[in-house]
């Protein structure tokens, strides 16, 4: 300390004397006697108010001292046992703007008097530091013998006693079973199940229910809803055009894993490194799709290097949050402000994923485009069919390779009469038009260049003549040119085009094509699509920008031509944004069939040479070569060849129709550097290898080899990892109590909440690991506790003593998650289709909701039939435009990892439940149930309806309101039957015969009310 500073400090201490005693006096009878706990009382204060400038981040550290490390703190500003001598205390207690900390102009919060006093007492008690609670291994705490059967209740009751809180009574059977069903399956119990449990709500009956629900396949669906939020599962790429990709097998893997009760360590390893396991199974490869769930881009002009950096950072953010409850994302630009993670560790963590085969920028446009490595995931039926086809293809292939005397004879005849080789004749245009217009230029090589105006969707109309007298096929070449964007061959900004239709006419008479082949087709834009009449299909050529390609169209029969024949070629471009061909050349040929792109026409020179070699002089291998060639064109084998082509095509179609899923594929790791300030343009940073955060006390065991994702996964589930198990059981707690024991389930660091029940959290985490990471066992443990089964109603005294119910004297009530609100309405109405997995479903969605998407533009096509009634978790998850009914109820876009959803209460939610066709249709189906299943008294129907949505009878007052509404609307519909018909037209569901439209419409008012009730969409 400098002299000047010492004097100032001394003065300050003098001044403080009086103040401190004031503060102490003010505290008076308060808890000043109790022990101050560093983790609970002090660290959150220091972290929030001081660490920004005196914490882990060296880059912003002021005055060269830090408060997060005791050795440094007691060497500078803390004198243990003596607050009055401690500058820390003097500074935080000071009212002098020049001295006080945090400084007056700081954004960090000033400490309150009580907080200053806490720090004073802490220093007085010796300024003890503890390791941050979540970084220390879980403590083994002994549960009192008499409570050994339920450690959860032992710990919770102990805290309640400490706080003088009376626990709430057990919830009534209906509330309890409804809660249990939603928490474990996401669906409500049936009224019968509720009645059975109400008749016997014993512990044994409850335990049997728990067992049944954990065994139900719905359990996996319910757990998946949460896990998919964490890993940001979605059905679209998320950036710019937000194109679709195919990932649903990964979603189904998650559901299956929870249903099979896959140990969580195995679940972890398969997702992070399934592909690296020896002889990785299909299941393990699907699991490795976890690493591919980050958002990716196909935006033109994006730089690969920048986006690879974005993807790397995204993986670190997500993975560290999912398994460690860590906010490592903060370290992309600098050392963490509050926790001991460094910027170098951030990039070391990213380096684990540097082996993933991926592109920074993709060129895809649809679900079948290339979005990185993927595998097909056949259904069992597809698998069987595939084996059949492979067998047939093999047999046919063999028959085509077998020499016979007949073939030898035919070959000899063919050799004797070998025809001249044909060649392509380039056509000369006589007229070139485009609608809208472009400027055509004829180039010397006979090609045509479109220049000038660059219309959105031009239709080209070209006329030619030819000297050829017979034609078998037409060839269209698309060629690059410097005047075109990206050198073409297309006129879109990226050099691409989409040819949607091509029509050829001779003297005005259309000529069809039999086959279409190309030297290259863009994924999802095959040349063969030009043979169909679907105008949305087309031929495109990414990534072959700046290169030539050709398409060959074979005619079904040879056509005869004269020099006077007028040949018209019409080429339509529908895609928009100038996706039109920029330079092209057209030619005809008269040649033996088949004529295909990628295949020379006529007889190859090599074969011709062999034919000219006298038979006696040919070597054995030359003989064989010639015979083999002949077999490819021999008319006798036409049938087998055609058969083979068909089977091959069928196999291809089958393969194309299989659902695919993106997977991890390992390749040579990219170099990973520390990016200073997260700047991807800055190559000055240190090169790093994969590595784990150092402060957690144990390292990877790799014997010097480069660590892999598998090492990382094993490090997460190592018994020594203090975070993984705690983080996971805390999320189970959040799912079953509405809030975790650590309320910040996404942040177990210094700025996060500390556990309300640290011993309980540790006991659960320990049990989780010791059980072999048994998820169902932990869920069972939690829901069988008394704490879980308590009522969620609280007395005034409970509220006063514990405003937020942190100590769990009662359960908590909360609104159902978005998916369950949908599921509940479908279940109540009887519309729900319970089918596990498969490609995502597309329920009703307002037209035009995707109108801001482009590349390509698209309109949502809803499903028909059963897929309209699937559970919410199967709804197509479009990241930039999530289904509006899910979004209204706080379903996350899954652009980033989400650990805790917001729970909001908005007018949009009312509009969805009132007016979304899904809910209007559900109301109709529910009304049908009331009419079909209820007896004739309106009151009985109302009870039935209330049972369907809330599993209870309606009260007298409720019956009165609903009856009145029914009667009033019934009268109105009697005089306005057309309105009734209109209302009944919403949704595909077919009203059964014999139901009176007027009555049904009136009962729909009742069922709409029921589906909208607050209690219907809440779990208590």
């Amino acid at each position: 300390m400098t002299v000047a500073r010492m004097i100032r400090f001394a003065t300050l201490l003098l001044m403080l004397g009086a103040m401190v005693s004031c503060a102490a006096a003010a505290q008076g009878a308060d808890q000043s006697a109790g022990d101050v706990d560093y983790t609970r009382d002090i660290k959150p204060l220091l972290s929030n108010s001081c660490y920004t400038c005196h914490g882990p981040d060296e880059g912003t550290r002021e005055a060269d001292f830090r408060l997060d490390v005791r050795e440094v703190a007691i060497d500078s500003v803390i004198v243990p046992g003596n607050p009055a001598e401690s500058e820390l205390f003097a500074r935080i207690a000071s009212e002098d703007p020049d001295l006080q900390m945090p400084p007056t102009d700081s954004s960090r919060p000033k400490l309150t008097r009580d907080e200053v006093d806490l720090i004073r007492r802490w220093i007085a008690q010796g300024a003890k530091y503890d390791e941050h609670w979540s970084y220390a291994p879980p403590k083994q705490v002994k549960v009192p013998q008499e409570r050994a059967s339920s450690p959860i209740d032992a710990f919770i009751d102990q805290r309640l006693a400490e706080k003088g809180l009376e626990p709430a009574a057990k919830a009534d059977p209906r509330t309890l079973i409804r809660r249990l069903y939603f928490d474990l399956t996401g669906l409500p119990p049936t009224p019968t199940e509720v009645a059975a449990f109400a008749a016997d709500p014993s512990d044994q009956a409850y335990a049997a229910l728990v067992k049944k629900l954990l065994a139900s396949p719905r359990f996996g669906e319910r757990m998946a809803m949460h896990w998919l939020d964490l890993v940001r599962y979605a059905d679209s790429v998320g950036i710019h055009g937000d194109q679709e990709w195919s990932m649903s097998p990964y979603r189904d893997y998650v559901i299956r894993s929870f249903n099979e009760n896959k140990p969580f360590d195995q679940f972890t390893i398969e997702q992070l490194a399934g592909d690296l396991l020896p002889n990785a199974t299909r299941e393990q490869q699907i699991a490795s799709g976890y690493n591919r769930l980050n958002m990716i881009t196909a935006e033109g002009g994006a730089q690969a290097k920048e986006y690879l950096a974005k993807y790397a950072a995204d993986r670190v953010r997500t993975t560290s949050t999912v398994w460690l409850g860590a906010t490592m994302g903060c370290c992309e630009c600098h050392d963490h402000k509050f926790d001991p993670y460094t910027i170098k560790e951030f990039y070391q963590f990213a380096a684990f994923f540097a082996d993933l085969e991926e592109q920074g920028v993709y060129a895809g446009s649809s679900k079948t485009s290339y979005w990185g490595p993927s595998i097909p995931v056949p259904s069992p039926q597809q698998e069987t069919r595939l084996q059949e086809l492979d067998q047939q293809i093999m047999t046919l292939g063999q028959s085509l390779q077998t020499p016979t005397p007949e073939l030898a004879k035919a070959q000899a005849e063919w050799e004797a009469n070998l025809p001249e080789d044909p060649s392509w004749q380039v056509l000369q245009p006589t007229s070139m038009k485009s609608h809208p217009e472009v400027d055509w230029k004829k180039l010397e090589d006979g090609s045509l260049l479109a220049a000038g105006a660059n219309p959105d969707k031009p239709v080209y109309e070209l006329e030619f003549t030819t000297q050829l007298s017979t034609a078998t096929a037409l060839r269209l070449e698309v060629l690059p040119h410097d005047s075109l964007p990206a050198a073409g061959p297309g006129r879109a900004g990226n050099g691409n085009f989409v040819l949607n239709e091509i029509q050829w006419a001779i003297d005005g008479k259309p000529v069809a094509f039999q086959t279409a082949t190309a030297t290259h087709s863009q994924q999802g834009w095959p040349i063969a699509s030009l043979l169909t009449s679907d105008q949305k299909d087309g031929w495109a050529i990414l990534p072959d920008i700046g290169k030539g390609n050709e398409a060959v169209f074979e005619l079904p029969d040879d056509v005869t031509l004269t020099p006077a024949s007028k040949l018209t070629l019409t080429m339509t471009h529908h895609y928009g944004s100038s996706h039109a061909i920029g330079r092209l050349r057209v030619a005809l040929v008269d040649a033996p069939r088949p004529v295909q792109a990628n295949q020379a026409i006529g007889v190859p020179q090599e074969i011709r040479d062999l034919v000219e070699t006298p038979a006696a002089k040919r070597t054995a291998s030359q003989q064989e070569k010639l015979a083999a060639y002949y077999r490819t064109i021999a008319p006798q084998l036409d049938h087998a060849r055609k058969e083979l082509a068909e089977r091959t095509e069928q196999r291809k179609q089958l393969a194309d129709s299989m659902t695919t899923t993106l997977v991890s594929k390992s390749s040579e790791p990219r170099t990973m550097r520390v990016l200073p300030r997260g700047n991807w343009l800055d190559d000055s940073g240190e090169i790093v290898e994969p590595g784990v955060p150092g402060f957690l006390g144990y390292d990877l065991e790799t014997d010097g080899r480069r660590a892999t994702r598998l090492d990382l996964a094993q490090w997460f589930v190592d018994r020594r990892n203090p975070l993984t198990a705690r983080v996971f059981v805390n999320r189970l707690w959040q799912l079953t109590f509405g809030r975790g024991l650590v309320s910040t389930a996404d942040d177990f660091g210094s700025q996060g909440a500390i556990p309300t029940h640290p011993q309980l959290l540790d006991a659960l985490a320990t049990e989780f690991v010791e059980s072999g990471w048994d998820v169902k066992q932990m869920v069972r443990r939690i829901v069988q506790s008394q704490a879980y089964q308590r009522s969620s109603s609280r007395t005034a005294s409970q509220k006063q003593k514990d405003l937020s119910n942190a100590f769990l004297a009662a359960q908590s009530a909360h609104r159902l998650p978005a998916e369950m609100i949908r599921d509940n309405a479908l279940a109540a109405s009887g519309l729900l289709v319970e089918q596990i997995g498969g490609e995502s479903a597309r329920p009703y969605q307002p037209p035009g909701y995707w109108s801001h998407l482009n590349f390509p533009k698209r309109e949502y096509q809803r499903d028909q039939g059963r897929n309209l009634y699937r559970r919410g978790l199967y709804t197509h998850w479009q990241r930039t435009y999530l289904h509006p009914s899910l979004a209204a109820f706080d379903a996350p876009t899954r652009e980033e990892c989400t650990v805790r959803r917001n729970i909001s209460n908005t007018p949009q939610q009312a509009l969805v439940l009132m007016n979304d066709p899904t809910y209007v249709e559900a109301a109709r189906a529910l009304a049908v149930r009331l009419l079909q299943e209820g007896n004739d008294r309106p009151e009985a129907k109302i009870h039935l309806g209330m049972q369907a949505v809330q599993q209870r009878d309606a009260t007298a007052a409720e019956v009165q309101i609903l009856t009145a509404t029914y009667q009033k609307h019934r009268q109105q519909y009697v005089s306005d039957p057309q309105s009734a018909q209109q209302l009944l037209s919403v949704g595909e569901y077919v009203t059964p015969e014999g139901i009176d439209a007027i009555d049904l419409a009136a009962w729909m008012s009742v069922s709409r009310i029921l589906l909208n009730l607050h209690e219907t969409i809440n779990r208590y």
Partner: protein
Amino acid sequence: MYSQSAASLRQTRRTFLGHGIAGLGSAALASMLTADSVCADQQQSAFPNFAPQAKRVIVLCQAGGPSHLETFDEKPELKRLDNQPMPESFTQGQPIAQLQGKQLKCYAPRFDFKRYGESGQTIATLFPKMGEIADDLCIINSMVTEQINHDPAHTFMNTGTSISGRPSMGSWVQYGLGSEADDLPGFVVLTSIGKGGQAQPIAARQWHSGFLPSRHQGVEFRSAGDPVLYVNSPPGVTAARQQDVFDAINQMNALRQPTLDDPEIATRIAQYELAFKMQTSVPSLMDVSGEPQHVLDMYGTQGGDGTFAANCLLARRLAERGVRFIQLYHRGWDHHGGLERGMQICASEVDQASAALVTDLKNRGMLDDTLVVWGGEFGRTPMAQGSGRDHHIKGFSIWMAGGGIQGGLKYGKTDDLGYNAAENIVHVHDFHATMLHLLGINHEKLTYRSQGRDFRLTDVHGHVVHDILA
């Protein structure tokens, strides 16, 4: 409309909310509704922090990135160097979008500029109507941003970061100040699509509330289909019958309150009231048939056609009804090629209506407390890309008007070729800080705790540009 018990419950809600929803800072409201936010709220002093100049904001987002060189930034030197190589000193080591690896040549501005108004602001002659309001505009020629592709650039312009999941500026403003509209959302988004060139996609992320409570999300008003998603009753359900259903729901929810003891029920009832009001207020807002002909003519629209002009008129109507943050997107400014024609088309679509909005607000005495912002997610290169320009982030232009902004001012400069912002550089964070300042918010104080960190719209950056304040 409601039974005795519902009415008394509504009273309870009013008491509960203190002043009713209108005008109450939502930051405070949040804490009352959920215990979880109590801690966050302790730091959240009431907003505004000081007397606001502006009560509301209208952002006219020209999506795709309009060229500053054909709008507000005159560059004679670029004209002189037309078709000559772009000096490497400008472009070395700079991020480049579609021109990666291409030869870089200067491309002369396509249109003449002229001095307008008493202030003599230079504006391209392509925008004569904006020229007429030159004295109301503060043109900033020295904007910079950090993201060079559309999607992340929009995200950055709206949320102050390119990482997804953070709140947009409209959500932040609503979170801080609440809404003054009692039957409309506080943050409304309108979109239109240009007739020329390709329309780049925009994402709902741009008006998402991120980690803020979802009610602060921007609500899209649409020109086709339901004007707000699901705001129309099912077919065959008359307004009266829909009201019966709403009433019954609220009565029944109120009945359950004593049994369930759930504070969310009161909120639920209030939200159903608001939803019902929106079923009337939204269609009536969208119905411009009552607007006098001279007003329609001024904007150049008959309304109801989803054009930018129609949306400008709706923006004024929303502003009149107390909507806090109104954002218009016009998609059509991505002129990689065909710049000249593209600019002409865009100008014909937005020039008159943009100017009409400012004039109309002024005529109604609303410009003083309405901040209007005009600009895209970035600008365009001085270099040619065929017959167009590529994306550019190192210098571009926007304008601001009204709500505490000094009119007739040109602020900041780019270099002689319009490449780098060279003088009085205004970063997106500075723009955000200034916008919040005009609303009476200290941008360093408007924070929300997420994952252990107090997030701000301005991240850890941002300076209020005091020089442009009135």
